[in-house]
Structures are given as C-alpha cells and as structure tokens.
C-alpha cells in the first residue's frame, strides 16, 4: 500500500496510528519518509543568543544547507533553546520575530556613500570605502591632534572625531573597537550604556 503524506494523515486521523497500520500489514514507507523529511529535520541547528534585551535568552537557529563549501546557508526558523537556564525555551514577542530581523528588507548589503549636498546613495566597494574613510580620519587627526595642552603637558588626544560603539555587538567587536579607538587618541567615545 502506497500512501501519500496527506492520505497517511487522513487514515491516521481516522483512528489508526502509524504503528498500528504497520501492524496490520500496511507499510506506509513513503508516508514515514515524508514525515522524516519534515523541513526542520533537514536543517542545521546553531545555538545563539537573542540580540535584543539583556536577559540573554538562548535561541536555536535552523538553517538550510549543510555548511559545505559553496552552499549558502539560509536560516528558516528560530526558536527558544529549551536547555537554556533562563528562558527555558520561551521567547517574547520580540525574540519570536527574530527571523524577520535576519531577513528584513532593510538589511544593508553594500557599502554606500552620500556625497555632500546630494540626495541619494551611491554604491561603492569596500576598498574605496575604507580608503576614503581612513584618509578623512588621518587628515582630521593630523590637523587637530593635541600632543600637549596649554601647560605643555603631554596629553596626546584627538577630539575632533568621535566614535559611538554598539551595545548589541559582541565582546570581541567591542574589545577590538576600544583598542583601535584609543590607539588613535580618541576621547569622544561612548556606547549605548551612556544613554
């Protein structure tokens, strides 16, 4: 007996379970195979942490694609991590919508520049972006760096460019950001904790 997945569920809903069907001699091989290929079963699970508030709920991200070279993994489902000691599998309305954040149509994809006085973005490459930004920074730093204050004391600070760091980026991003910013002598430096 061959049953499609839909037929199998119909039969099962009629009062028979899959195992009793098998016991009766019907072997719903195709149907069971269908159940096994339930979409999440073909996904890769990755543990992550909700990036919104500070509860730090554990989440599981399910992505299609086996992480092989040239396979583009795509996250298709996100849910709470039941092993997590704080959220124990639950998510709030914010965390429950994380998938739509990952795939928001307002995600940025390419470096862009808006030139002075214009009203549109222009796509540029990373190399151009980095080089232009570094040039602007160096120009400003070289022109305005304060090596000594009015009393002749070495102060080595750069006040005319500032930096705001992200409160949702990782420790590792934060650490390297701090290291770079201070090496330049910046003091106009804060993160979301200030507000």
């Amino acid at each position: 007996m061959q049953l499609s997945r839909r037929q199998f569920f119909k039969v099962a809903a009629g009062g028979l379970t899959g195992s009793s069907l098998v016991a009766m001699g019907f072997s719903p091989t195709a149907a069971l195979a269908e159940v096994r290929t339930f979409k999440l079963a073909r996904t890769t699970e990755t543990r992550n942490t909700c990036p919104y508030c500070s509860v730090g709920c554990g989440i599981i991200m399910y992505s299609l694609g086996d992480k092989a070279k040239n396979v583009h993994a795509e996250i298709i489902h996100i849910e709470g991590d039941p092993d997590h000691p704080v959220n124990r599998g639950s998510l709030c309305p914010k965390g429950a919508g994380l998938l739509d954040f990952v795939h928001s149509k307002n995600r940025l994809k390419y470096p862009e520049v808006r030139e002075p006085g214009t009203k549109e973005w222009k796509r540029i490459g990373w190399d151009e972006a980095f080089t232009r930004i570094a040039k602007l920074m160096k120009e400003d730093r070289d022109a305005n760096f304060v090596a000594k204050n009015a009393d002749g004391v070495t102060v080595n600070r750069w006040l005319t460019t500032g930096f705001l760091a992200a409160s949702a980026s990782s420790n590792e991003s934060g650490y390297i950001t701090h290291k770079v910013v201070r090496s330049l002598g910046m003091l106009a430096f804060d993160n979301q904790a200030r507000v």
Partner: protein
Amino acid sequence: MTNHWSDIKNADVILIMGGNAAEAHPCGFKWVTEAKAKNKARLVVVDPRFTRSAAMADLYAPIRTGTDIAFLGGVIHYLITNNKVHLDYIKSYTDMTFLVKDEFAFADGFFSGYDPEKRKYDKSSWEYQMGEDGFVKTDPSLENPRCVWNLMKAHFSRYTPDVVENICGTPKDKFLQVAELLASSHTPDRVMTILYALGWTQHSTGSQIIRTAAMVQLLLGNIGRAGGGVNALRGHSNIQGLTDLGLLSNLLPGYMTLPGEKETDYDAYIAKRAPKPMRPGQLSYWQNYGKFHVSLMKAWYGNAATKENNWAFDYLPKLDKTYDVLQVFELMHQGKMNGYIAQGFNPLNSFPNKAKVGAALSRLKYLVVIDPLATETSEFWQNYGEFNDVDPAKIQTTVFRLPSTCFAEEDGAIVNSGRWLQWHWKGAEPPGEAKPDPAIMAGIFLRLRDMYKKDGGAFPDPILNLAWTHKLPYDPSSEELAKEYNGKTFADQLDPKDPTKVIKKAGELLDGFAQLKDDGSTACGCWIFSGAWTEKGNMMARRDNADPYHNGQTLGWAFAWPANRRILYNRASADPAGKPWDAKRKQVWWDATQSKWVGSDVPDFKADSVPEDGMGPFIMTPEGVARFFARGAMNEGPFPEHYEPFETPIGVNPMHRNNPKATSNPAARVFKGDMEAFGTAKDFPYAATTYRLTEHFHYWTKHVHSNAVIQPEQFVEIGEALAAEKGIKAGDKVKVSSNRGYIKAVAVVTKRIKPLKVDGKTVHHVGIPLHWGFKGVAKNGFITNTLTPFVGDGNTQTPEFKSFLVNVEKA
C-alpha cells in the same frame, strides 16, 4: 545585576520600580512569576503607569515621574523609625559607625562646598575623620553625632509619609503598605530583590536614585544574598559587556579609568586607583590595579609597552573633561567636531532634542554609519516630510554607510544583565557584502596604519605599535580576540606556595585575574573577563545547566565575571562568624575543617580569610564595608536628596521652597542654550515619560515585519481624566509638543494612567512609546526624542528621557 535572572526565584519580596520587566524583559520576568508561584513571593510595583508588571503585582503604588528619591527616602525613614533594619548586618558590613568630618553639612538643599557659579561642589568636607593610626575613626556605640548612622538618620528624618505623598503623589496609605511589605525583608530569613531599568537611570538624579535603593537594600541586609541585590535590567543584549570593556569616554576595560591631564606622574596615577585599606585587616582589592593596568597595556602594545616608558603611559589620551555623548553633540552643534562614526547605534533617534542632534550632524565633514539596518541617522540629511524636514542640498556632510553582520551571522560572546558571558555561533552568511564589525574596524585601522607608516603624521607611535597578531590581519577572529581579553603569560609562572612547581608555562592562557602581574610578564585585555577562555577551552561556551543546589546558580553554564561568581558580595550572605544568615538559603560559608570559604557559588572573598580576622565582605572598597555615606563618589552629595526634574510640573522643590537654585539637581551640567530650551508648566503642563512596548525593541523592530504587524503605528497614552478635559477620544490624532518640537500620534485613552495630587496641584502624565521613526517596515512616525530635554544625570550624563513637560492637543 548584583545577582542574576534565575536568582529572582529565591526572593520573598520583589520590588519593580524604574522598570517594567513584564514588557521590556518578558523572559526574565518569568522568574518573578516563578518566585510568586513557588516561593509565595509578593510583588510590588511602583510606577506612574499601571503597567503589565503592575497587573501582576500584589501591590501597586502610583508615583509621579522623577520623584523616586523622595519615595525611597521615605522608605529609609520608615525602616529607621520603625526599627526594621537588619542591625547585625549593617553593624558589621556598612560604614554606619564611621565618623565624618565636622565640616560636612547640609543646609537649604546644598551640601557643604557648593559653588553656584560653577554648579559644582568642592567635595573636601565629604570625608571621614582619620585617626593617627591612618585608619578611619569609628564609634561602635553610635553615640557620636558625627557617625554616619546619626547623620543619615537626621538627613532622612525629613522624608515623612506626608512629604512622600506631597511630592510623589502616592497616597499615604499606599506608600505605607509598600514600606511595610519592603520592611518585612529585614529579618535574616526573608530577602527582597529590587529590579530597575532605564526608568531610574534616565533622570537628572538617576545615579542617586539607584544609590538610595542600594541604601534600602543594605538597611534590610539584602545585598550579597540569593534572592536579593540591586538589579539593573540592562537595556540591550551586550550593553553590559561594552560597559565591562570600558567603551566610554573616560574608561578603560574592566572599570579602570583613563588619566586626567593633571595626572602627569605614572606612579601617582596607579597609586590613586589602588587605595590602601582604610580600616585594619581589609583587603581593598583594587590594590592590584597596577597588575590589571600593566597587563592591559601589554595586550594592546606588546613589546612597545616597557617599564622604562611606564608601560606606554604617553600612548593613553589624557582627559581634560569627559566627552560623553551630550558633551560631544554640544561640541558638534558648535561646529567643533569634524568626523563621527556610529557603529550599530542610531543617535538621531537615541539622543535628546532631535532638532539639535540633526543640526549637529549637519555640521560634520564626514559621518560613518556601520549597521546591519538602514537607520535614521544614516539618512539624517534626507527629507522625510514632517518627520525629518531638512534640505539635503544644504547639508555638506559626506556620509558612508557600511553594512555589518547581525547576531546570526557571527561567532562571539555577549554579556547578559546577570554578567554571564554567553558564546554564540554563526548560522548563516550575511546578506550581500556585509562584514563583521571586527573586519570593518580592521579595514579602517590597517589603512590608517599603512598611511602613517608611509607618510608619517601626528604621533603615529600608538598606531604603528598596536599589537595586531591575527592570522588574518584584515579579519580578526572572535576566538583570537576572546583569548586576548582573557590574557596570557609571557613567562613561566611559579606556584607562590611551592616555587619549584610551574603552574603556568610561558605562552599559556591564564586561568584568571589572580595570575596577573605588574612586571610586564602577563597580558590581559580585560581583567574581569579573565578566565573566560583558558587552556581548558572556551568557558563561555559551556552548556551544563545542572543546578545541584536548586538555587539557580548554574555554575557550569557559560562564564560569569568575575571568576564565574554568580552573586556579587556573596560573603555578606553569611554572618560575621561565617555562618549563613539563613540555613535554608546557603550560598557561601566558612569551612573550618578545610580552613577556607566554600559554597554553592564561587566565594566573592579572600578564600582563606578566617572570620575572626574581621575582613569585610565589600572587598572592592578600601573600607571593606558598604557605604551609606558616599564620600566624594557622587557629584551632588554623599547622601541622596530629592530634586525636581529640570522640567517640573510643580515648578518648585517642596523640600527647599525658599532656594530656587535647589529646585533641580544643583550639580547637573547644563549647556548654554539648553537651559533656555527647558519649558515650564505654564506652557507645557503635563509630566511626560518615554518607554518601550512589549512588541518592539528600541528602533530595530520597526524594520521587522512580524513586529510591525502586531504594533504598526505610533501612539501616545493619556488618562481618561485628561482626555475628557481636552475633548480627546480614543483613536484621535493628537499633537504632543515640548519646548523643543512636536510629534503627532494616535491617542490611546487609558485607565492605566491616573491624575496625581502633587503639592496641591493635579498632575497628569502623558506616556510616549519610543519605537518609531522614518525608516522601517512599520508605519513611519515621528522621532520621540524630538521632545526630550538635553540634560543628563549629574554623574553619568545619562539624558533625562523619563521626566519632561509637554502639552497635548487635538491634531
């Protein structure tokens, strides 16, 4: 948080004030529910609005926004006058017996040393009396009128229930019910936790509100105990980590501080931060400051940091003042800044007085925005009609927008409110050409370094010598960076007890900050994170959720700083003899057979300190005890005092009617022009406050389809009485204006906001959710911070978003 999320279940009483955990931290709030269900805990909520947290409360008390010090001061008065304090705890674990200088005084709203011209205090009188032995003088009999206890009693004697009712608008009987319930936790067998959030920090007196709460918890003996503590529910997923890593104008990683420009001598700079004990037998753990600092400089500058150059002391920029965001945008507004880089941060929406912030950005030469999303800040120059009415042709700022990855597309750790460093893993590639933040920082830095190498320029030394040993210099990995902040040793480390044994081989990762040295033989990028990634592997990635003591202290889950401790100050959970105050709630205790401290948590103490030696549990203070008297640590005084918000609906501080200069925080910094931009109750009669909704997170989820569906359009909440007075019906469009601008939104008329009787006047509140803007998939709306005032807390400069004045009219 002094404690952590699952620990809330251990509480008997829970006070939520200055926060709304049920809506802003829903999955953390589950532990409140758990405490109620399993521990018969009682929940108290004090808030201007009847929030969803209030809906779950056993007791709700309304309060006028910005008057929390008066309320909590009233609680302190109640605890003292009704003798509801944990006396054995405060006698041994606080400064109550310490004597204060005779010159210290408080009169007419000012503490001693005030300079009204500079709006600043000379804090020299805010100190202890020192004995000839070099230690603070104390009076254990508490008879001396100059002991902290007596000064504190006198200070708070003015905060009677009538005064609380008059200032806060909280009915006296409600206040007394709250005070009585809070007071029930003064016995050793009951514990209260306090949960707060931005509803306390975002006031011109925010830091002092939190201090007052800490004083309440000390009086009740609730600090260091399971189910206790003062718990900041931080607003963002890694705001704790970025604070820990010191990404603030005046900080270095691990709560170390940058030198001021007057600190020209390196040894004095370190010595000032490594204070000697002020009482006999105290640990004063910051005495190790030099080890943390030198190890940081070795992590950053490697071989370029030497003993001879004071570990590259000149590489550190020296402060003339703090460049917090209000200061920076003030300078930008004056045209004194040229460049700005916003990494995952949306200042146009997030900072007060949007008109000023937008004008400031327009005066920049260049702005760089690094973000996963198209933020309003990145398009501050674009005309969005009424939401952003600017002329792009007149704005000469070059704006770069760089796409970064989001959480799902990167490895790394973030630190939750409970100080847990939790590792996460990459699950997909980012869209388009987006890059991780470290790669973007590397891209900019490496080009700058090449330019300085090639062309020279202003003080290139720190740039050229910055340690950059990544396998892929343009793409530093999270693993490399985590190991760098954990720290390593350059030389073999010998066992101090048996110098023939090598406990750490040269080049190995450190086990923790106890192994740090100030001789240049160790490197560590953030001492409090040391232990996060050791030779045993990535401690932050641990996933053992076993809870053998059933107290929620899952020591095998992730890594908590410092040293995997789950509850700070936990030595105070035991009495001076080292026995737990409450046998049912054992945390750490002295084990005489092993001669060491043991417990269900990692003891926050010197492990072999015999109780008889009298070392205090607050090992980070030179006193060894907690301070009721803050000394010079706060800018507006050693004791908290009620001051009105800068925009006050009653126009006077009822505590100091005859001193208009003490109406609002006398030590808060106000820039020229901003004082004039404050409104008064004559034109803007209603007290306004901003907040988050359950369905949205800040300015992100308006980009998220599902959240935009469930909460699509901007609204404001007004009470039925005010709506009736103004002829506003639910669903009407209203215009809400402050002295700085206006927004238009749909009116939600609610029973959740009731008028309060304050100082003989009726005060209405207007509630303004903050989530909208002109970019997103939700319906575009106005930026809420168009309305808010450009003034910050007297210590942290956190803007006063939670208390200001508006008018409301039908649009």
